[in-house]
């Protein structure tokens, strides 16, 4: 696809998560549920977001469903699909955040 995912190597038995995946998990954790909203908040293009969403769903870190018909009909538009974290997804996110915080502590800050 032209872009290269840097894979963060994690402990065995956990699926390899790309940066994109991590961003998406974060966005979902912050309450952005629709694909378009995730695009806006992460500034990633749709060609990146959606394939990543599919893979996360296949890994069962994320789940999806249709929004309520009533809501969509009230607003006069077709119903959309929304995404949310699963328990496993929340767990992954927490672990990743812990690791990044640890990375930040590996090197002393440059005293400029």
């Amino acid at each position, binding site marked *: 696809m032209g872009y290269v995912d840097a894979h963060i190597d994690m402990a065995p038995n956990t699926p390899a998560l790309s940066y994109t995946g991590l961003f998406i998990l974060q966005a979902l954790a912050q309450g952005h549920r629709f*694909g378009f909203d995730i695009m806006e908040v992460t500034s990633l*293009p749709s060609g990146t977001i959606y394939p990543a969403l*599919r893979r996360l769903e296949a890994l069962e870190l994320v789940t999806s469903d249709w929004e309520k018909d009533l809501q969509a009909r009230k607003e006069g538009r077709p*119903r959309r699909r929304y995404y949310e974290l699963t328990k496993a997804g929340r767990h992954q996110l927490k672990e990743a955040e812990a690791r990044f915080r640890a990375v930040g502590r590996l090197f002393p800050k440059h005293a400029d």
Partner: protein
Amino acid sequence: MRITRAALRLVSLIVPHADRPRWVEEWTAELRHGGWRMLPGALPDAWTLRALARDERRLTRRSSPGIFHALDQDVRYALRTFGSGKSFTLAVVGSLAIGIGATTTAFAMVNATLFRPFPKVHAQDGLVRVMLAPGTRTFISSTWDDYRVLREGIPALESLSIAHDASFAVAPDGGGEPRTVGGVVVSHNYFDVLGVRPARGRFFVPEDEARRRPAVVVSHTYWQRYLAGDPSVLQRSLDVNGAELPIIGVVAEGFGGVFTRGDAHLWITFALSDLVFRTKDGQPIQARDAEPFRNTMIGRLKPAATIEQASAQAAGLAQPLAETRDRSLGKRELFVRVEPLRVADPERFALMAIGLMVVPLIVLAIACVNGANLLVARASQRSVDWLVRLALGASRWRLIRQLLVESLLLALAGAALGLVLCFWTASYVQVLAFPAVVVDANVVLFVVGAAAATALVFGLGPALSVTRAAVSRAPEAGRFLRGPFGSRTRAALVMLQAALCLGLLATGAQFMKTLQVIWEDGLPEPAGFLTVSLDVDPLRYGRDQAETFYSQLLARVEELPGVEAAALTDRSAAQMLAGAVTSWGGHIAVPGVPDAPRDVYTAYATAGFFEAMGLQLVQGRTFTSEEHRRPPRAVVVNETFVGRAFGEHALGRVVTLAADREAGTAVVEAMVVGVIALDRRPLFSRLPVVFYPAPLTHEPALDLLVRVDGGAAAIAPAIRTIVSSIDPRLPLGRVATGEDLRRQRNVRDYTLARTVSVLGILALVLAAAGLYGVVSYMVTLRQKEIGIRMALGAEGASVLRLVLRQSLVPVLAGCVLGALGAGVIASLIRSRLYGVSPMDPVAFGGAALLLVLTMIVASLAPARRASRVDPVNVLRAE
């Protein structure tokens, strides 16, 4: 937005089928929300989904058990569903039984002719036939010397035998009635080459031939029928053509000879060939001194030898053999052909075999369409079944397998029934002049194969479509219930069935009509007509003796009370009565008229012939009794001959007659004394015919024709008495009344026509049953729609009309198609449709009417059910 939607639909083709509807809906909503800039993401998303689906399939495949896992479950489940849907099961099995039964019977006939033609012959693959031929297609007679040369000159052959068919006058010792019996003159090694075993006694040994021992071998049938199965048969003897021959052996039951016209019942060696062979004047002669005679040479290959080796060796003998022949070959080259031993030329027979199989295959196709329709209907009704199984984790393949198992079981049941039908019909089709039709391993194998193929044909389509509909998890069950084939496909199938039906019915009707016409052709008025075949050659009558006998016989028969006319004719006239014009008889020339017709039908016939046959003389007279003495000095011709030879005036004109076409035989001049009318019988009106009153050569075999006032059969014993009083050793040949002739002639064509008609009726029944099933199903499906219509004010009658119209339109379309098809086929086989045009309106009209009426009846019951739908009940059930 429209362009965006179109692009989206295009991209959606990449998405796996199962996920496609959801994906389209999701992206439509997102595009609506976010605008066209979302679009570029659609393609990568589609590819990702596709890749994920592929990975998932790979995983499940590795972890799933083999494809035949728990097959017994499928079988048990299938049997349970058959039990709960008995009428469905019966309908499908019945249809298939008819189709498979018809096809198997046709195959059994092909099998009997191509694959196992000669019963009781051992290891037929090692047998070859050796023939002399001037070209590639025909073969010619050969002499005893030719046989000796071939016997010594083909080392690849273990041994070579020779056989010559003949008719014998046979009477058992102890004074039984003399009979004409078919038999064969053979070399001593004949039975050894064929590997036939005796049921009693022994076969010939070289000494029998070398020492000219009187000996005869009889068939099992002859022993049982004419010797009453006498256990001391080996102590008995037979009077064969005037010689007393002891019986040395009885052939195993079922063996009737190889390449004999009709069954052979006795065998003698060539050492006794003077009992059968004659010179031109009727003197007995040994075969080794005789002119070339028709024969069959059969050899057995050595174990390691091939037919190609034998062929090559035989080819080397062609030159020396040609040199020993006289000028009879002319410019043609002589070939020696070595071919595998088979009943019929496979190339020529292949066409007949195809033609034979086509009609039953059409019936089978109709049965399969029925099966498919019924299967689809029932499978759709089990949609809840499928959804539950899918929810429990079944794969699509598992569902397909279930449906295929059901189809296979139904097909096997149909095949078993079909095999029983085949047994029954085997004896009936025997009459189509095939060798014994036997249900052997080949036929059983064919049945099983046909069942499997049938199951695939009618089961696979529905299985694939129904399961795809189930697996796509269509949200509305209603859409799924509508059935995967769609109304257009179903209509096309009904149309196809109707077309095939009409084709069969119309063709059968045309054949039957043809036979009506043929039966009139050439036959005399049947009431009071009798014909008796006689042959004095077995008793070695010379020419004078034969003529004396026959004139005595004729004179005494004419004096019998009730006899209106009696005549003698030669075998060519007899063949004409049998409906075959196979020989052109003598050579006619008209002096002074260089382009007189050369191909003229000639026959020896005495004066009473014309009255016996009901032919009208329009000019001149018939023969006088003086003119019966040879050489013939008078002829009677028909108007066609007059037209072609003289133009007009015929009486008193002279023609020359020669016995055969070769130069140097006696030529006789004869005067035209009478002209017979153009008869309504095409044979006598189409061909130029010349009758002469005295035989041109020695004619030992003649037919006696008698017309009596009253029942013809009653006079046969009197004729028998007259013959016995002149010569008690002489057997009567075939005795047939006019009715017998009418019935025996064209028995084969008649059976063929009747078979096609019966199959046509069967096809009609199947198609009607199929239509009934389809219309019933459609009515059930569309109950809601009908209920709504009626609730909105439609009347029962209009619903009835609607259903009938929808079900009959494809039928009518099929009629048109079928008429065209049958017309095309009929024009191809025009030669057999004698006197009936290829598009005979009566045949087609009648068949179409029958078809349409039957289909109306078939759709009436479900249509009436539709018109009686209670809208309240239907809508309440929704």
